[in-house]
């Protein structure tokens, strides 16, 4: 246990410069953007006399030298103040936190689905290596890896929503149905099925290929031969000896892909009208609401950093040999 704590402490220290870098980067983007918040506000107000604009700049500290502004920005971020959305008339943080659960639930569902399916298919393909089963699984993985997420989402809507009418295709729950308790959970589940499968396919393909290769590699190791030689049953070797070791690369890669999953959910959410961060980002682009947009980028980066930490912990638990120096 002490080992895991030490690893976490080490990682937390390493994370500080990374998070700092991301914040500075965000600040740079905000400044390189054509027009600042005051321009936007002045535009909103309709009138833009020079005096009023100058006064606003002073009020928000936008007339100060750049390092001072950066310092201010950092100080605000440390206090979890991500700025104000003039479009929604609310602080950005609240806006994001309100949408985060929807995105995280979609993401985690898609992640679990992709890992379960990917690991399952990968193990099956490795088990039946060089048979028709292996070929079919490999082709399925190749196709899933090459399919644009948003496009397969639209095709699912066409097939399961429009043609067959089995599943709802927009939103997170039936508006106005007034479901309570278990009914509501089922309703949300039905709404989540298509977007989650859409998002999961691409990652499932990665884990399938990885798991297959990893299983085959571990099968070739000496200790597996020893286990076979001492007469252990095939199933016991596959699950107790091979699977656990073969899972390590999947854990690593899955951890690296949290950021990519967040990006994928922007696309999937706009396809299925899922009320999460992706939709918020999409709307912010067309309303030119940069504060919200950069807040989303920053918060998503922090989610990725935290996810990496969780993966490190998982890794330390799965593989007792790991020691980070």
């Amino acid at each position: 246990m002490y080992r895991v704590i030490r690893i976490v402490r080490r990682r937390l220290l390493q994370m500080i410069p990374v998070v700092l870098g991301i914040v500075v980067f965000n600040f740079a983007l905000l400044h390189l953007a054509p027009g600042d918040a005051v321009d936007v506000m002045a535009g909103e107000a309709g009138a833009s006399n020079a005096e009023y604009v100058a006064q606003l700049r002073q009020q928000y500290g936008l007339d100060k030298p750049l390092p001072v502004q950066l310092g201010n920005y950092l100080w605000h971020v440390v206090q979890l103040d991500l700025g104000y959305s003039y479009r929604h008339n609310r602080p950005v943080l609240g806006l994001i936190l309100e949408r985060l659960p929807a995105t995280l639930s979609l993401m985690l569902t898609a992640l679990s689905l992709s890992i379960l399916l990917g690991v399952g298919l990968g193990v099956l393909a490795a088990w039946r290596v060089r048979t028709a089963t292996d070929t079919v699984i490999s082709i399925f993985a190749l196709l899933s890896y090459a399919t644009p997420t948003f496009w397969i989402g639209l095709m699912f809507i066409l097939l399961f929503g429009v043609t067959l009418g089995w599943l709802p295709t927009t939103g997170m729950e039936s508006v106005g149905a007034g479901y309570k308790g278990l009914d509501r959970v089922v309703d949300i589940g039905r709404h989540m099925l298509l977007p989650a499968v859409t998002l999961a396919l691409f990652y499932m393909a990665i884990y399938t290929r990885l798991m297959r290769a990893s299983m085959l590699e571990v099968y070739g190791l000496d200790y597996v031969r020893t286990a076979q030689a001492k007469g252990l049953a095939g199933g016991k070797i596959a699950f107790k000896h091979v699977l656990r070791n073969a899972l390590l690369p999947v854990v690593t890669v899955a951890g690296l892909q949290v950021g990519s999953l967040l990006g994928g959910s922007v696309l999937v959410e706009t396809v299925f009208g899922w009320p999460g961060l992706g939709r918020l980002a999409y709307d912010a682009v067309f309303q030119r609401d940069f504060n919200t947009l950069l807040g989303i980028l920053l918060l998503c980066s922090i989610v990725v950093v935290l996810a990496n930490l969780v993966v490190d912990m998982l890794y330390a638990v799965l593989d007792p040999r790991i020691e980070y120096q």
Partner: protein
Amino acid sequence: MAFWRQYRRNVAAVIGLAILLVVVVMAVSAPLLYPGDPWDMAGKPFIWPFQSWKFPLGTDRLGRDVAACIFHGARVSLLIGLVATLVAVVVGIVVGAFAGFYGGKVDDVLMRLTEIFQTIPSFIFIFVVVAVFTPTVPIIVLAIAIVSWPQLARLVRGEFIALRGRDFIQGCIAIGMSDLRIIFFQALPNALAPVIVTASVTVALAILAESGLAFLGLGDPNVMSWGTIIGAGRAVLRQAWYLTAIPGVAILLTVLALNLIGDGLNDALNPRLRGRR
């Protein structure tokens, strides 16, 4: 020639190469076969595919020729995918080579930098950058390149760390060859094989990213992209699903081809892995 003999053993990789060649021919022949602007109205709206000789892939809701859009879209996808990857490869090689060759403080600083760019969620980053600036081809290329280089840098770094200890590099150092010459003329050629393999997958991912961006309405409004066609076709998904399906298949096949080529290159360029599949 020996390389080709190795490559062609992998049937899937040969199929991938054939598909990619077709896409390249489409891209090159677009201005000849379909001169004129693909955005212009060419005929009646909503002609389904295979209904008219003049419009083999039909027309969209504004009467644009879908085949012309697909051909011109091939140009955009390939161009953005290739140029973004090229930029990413150059940056990745420089950062990775210096980090791996020098190690120590240089390595620490460069790898921290790489880590920052690897942590930022890539598609959201591209999306934000293109939204904050204007959606033009150079900005899109740059944004995709910025998120693509870290992976290549890590790869090159690993290769350089391994190469640094090898005798021929130590020999170069001993005879007093300049560092830059060792890095780019002695070590780099030996590190290129995995870079080429990864680059083919990077092109595929770049094409996927560009199509997603264009689908969301953040493509360059002056060029016809496959993602743009899907974004426009989405509004009429119920009446004319072919408008969404056709460009999607084009993206799928191109990306698939690039991935297959990557696998083939990996087999042909990595003698160590030969015969393991």
